[in-house]
């Protein structure tokens, strides 16, 4: 076990004294790319700062590599941080920035030179060793910050929204680079982000945080396909949500009656009791639309019909807004696979098809 947090609570003194973190338990494995995902104010950065040592927990224990460290200052913890705005030392060259940690550890000069050179090659900045941070682009600064944090071979790297200051094209490149870097170095990465796409693309495991608590933890596929709460369902990706009650016919499969009366088949439910007030959720891209006259390929899925009331053309996909007869609106995301045509006009009557497992019931708890 690399990093273990138990019962972490953090209360900042002052206004309200609402805990920023409240009973967080986490175990992060060696060589894992672990992501803390959540909206701003959920406590994810505070959690990272607790691991780095910039804050002390109000309650709970932090164990790094078998050693309790709640009172250990950051300069004695074998973890390094990549800051959101990089925090490069403005008066030092790229090479001196990267060598900073090794100098503080009083490593011999030739070792520092060697390691800095090796690290600058790794992040492809060898040619810029003598530049100053303000002479670099955002992406280059980002890579210097990475090299500086990695050169001392920390046992874990903490990354605080490291990509948020980059423009979107560069961000996509850096995602791949980070992932590659993590695989090559074999160092545990703890990555903080509010961007669910980033989290899904890079992580081995994700913890979704909300108001100081872990809402759900699991592999990306788990988080995306099997959200357990409304918050996770709506925060990670796009989701159709219907309020209503679970129906459990004796022996038969689950079904769901929406508030306005539509019946949906349910593949999986977080609760089992009949008539429980729950939410039915389905991803827009799991839904297939067909013109009403062409017929039904629901293969045991739901049988719903509706009228296209609006559509958004997104290039790769088109999102259709389908008004169901009982008053609810369903979003369906259809891939624009064909070269042209093959779309539904506003006002068209459509059948809503989906695979059997597409609809799930989750807790109503907000």
């Amino acid at each position, binding site marked *: 076990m690399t990093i273990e947090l138990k019962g972490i609570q953090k209360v900042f003194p002052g206004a309200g004294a609402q805990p920023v973190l409240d009973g967080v338990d986490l175990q992060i494995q060696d060589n894992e790319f672990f992501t803390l995902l959540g909206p701003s104010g959920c406590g994810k950065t505070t959690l990272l700062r607790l691991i780095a040592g910039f804050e002390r927990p109000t309650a709970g224990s932090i164990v790094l590599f078998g050693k309790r460290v709640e009172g250990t200052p950051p300069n004695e913890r074998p973890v390094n941080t990549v800051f959101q705005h990089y925090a490069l030392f*403005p008066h030092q060259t790229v090479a001196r920035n990267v060598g900073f940690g090794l100098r503080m550890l009083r490593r011999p000069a030739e070792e520092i030179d060697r390691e800095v050179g090796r690290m600058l090659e790794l992040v492809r900045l060898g040619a810029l060793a003598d530049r100053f941070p303000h002479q670099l682009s955002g992406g280059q600064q980002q890579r210097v910050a990475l090299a500086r944090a990695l050169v001392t071979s920390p046992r874990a790297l903490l990354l605080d929204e490291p990509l948020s200051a980059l423009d979107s094209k560069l961000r996509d490149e850096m995602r791949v680079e980070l992932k590659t870097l993590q695989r090559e170095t074999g160092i545990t990465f703890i990555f903080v982000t509010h961007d669910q796409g980033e989290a899904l693309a890079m992580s081995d495991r994700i913890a979704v945080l909300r108001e100081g608590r872990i809402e759900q933890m699991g592999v990306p596929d788990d988080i995306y396909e099997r959200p357990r709460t409304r918050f996770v369902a709506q925060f990670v990706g796009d989701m159709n949500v219907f309020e209503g009650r679970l129906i459990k016919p004796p022996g038969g499969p689950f079904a769901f009656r929406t508030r306005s009366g539509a019946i949906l088949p349910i593949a999986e439910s977080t609760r089992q009791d009949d008539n429980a007030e729950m939410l039915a959720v389905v991803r827009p891209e799991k839904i297939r639309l067909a013109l009403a006259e062409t017929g039904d390929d629901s293969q045991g899925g739901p049988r719903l019909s509706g009228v296209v009331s609006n559509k958004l053309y997104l290039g790769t996909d088109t999102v259709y807004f389908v008004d169901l007869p009982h008053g609810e609106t369903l979003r369906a995301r259809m891939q624009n696979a064909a070269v042209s045509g093959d779309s539904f006009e506003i006002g068209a009557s459509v059948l809503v098809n989906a695979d059997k497992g597409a609809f799930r019931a989750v807790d109503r708890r907000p």
Partner: protein
Amino acid sequence: MTYSTSGSDSRMLNARHLRPGPRGRSFPLSRLLMLPTIAVIGFFLVVPLGIIVTYSFLEPATFGGVVWSFSPEAYIQFLFERDIFDDTLAFNTAYLQIFLRSVSLAVAATLVSLMIGFPTAYFIATRPERQKNILIFLITLPFWTNLLIRTFCVLLILRDDGLINTVLMGLHIYEKPVTYLYNNTAMAAGLVYSYLPFMILPLYANLERLDKGLIEAAYDLYAKPWRVFTEVVLPHARPGIIAGSLLVFVPSLGTFLVPDMLGGGGRLLIGNLIQLQFGSSRNWPFGAALAVILLAAILLVLMLAASRSRSVNVQGGH
């Protein structure tokens, strides 16, 4: 792009030309706004300076004022003593000693101000916004009172029957009053007290812009607190240290109030010496020459500081 003021343009001076901004083609308003400053500096700095330099090369009149004939005597007098009988020159360090005493006192006052001012400025800069404003307001509070009165108050505190001695004797720590006044330490204390705000304010302005993330980054990368200070805080603060030191050093070097009141008048500094020449000694050219020497010394320090901060800039500062 040029700002040429061609004849036809200036004759056509209208609202368009008065519009401020970098692209004003003929006569930008911003230049007009400079005129009062140029007038004030021209009249009240350049002209008096010219008078001083001129006077320093003239001969003194018997009852003050100058005789209009050229003489380098004033500068010779600074370093040499002229024998009254045979006119031979002998090297005399009396004035040089006063000058050096002034410099070392100013250096001491600057160093002490820096040692007190830096932690203070750092403390204020790291407070929450509301507290910062209050604390900075408190730092500027002494400026509400005249320097003479403030120096007099220091005298009241330090003198034999002053506040400190009264308290110490009241507590029976000492039976007889301790003399704090009329020595170099008292003068340095007076200088520090007078000019400390000039050290704190530029340092505060500088440290307030220090990114807290840099300190955390250094701390995260295994730096001990002392190394965080030398590697991150100090390089950032260098321009503030230079500015604050100059603002304390320069007025300290020219002071005459502090030695008069806290030095007891017996320990001359260059400021008093100059004052004396225009007063009771009635040797205006020598006073002017001393002022020019002082000015030259200060300019030298300023140029050193400027070249120093330029080399810092080349190193990649801001």
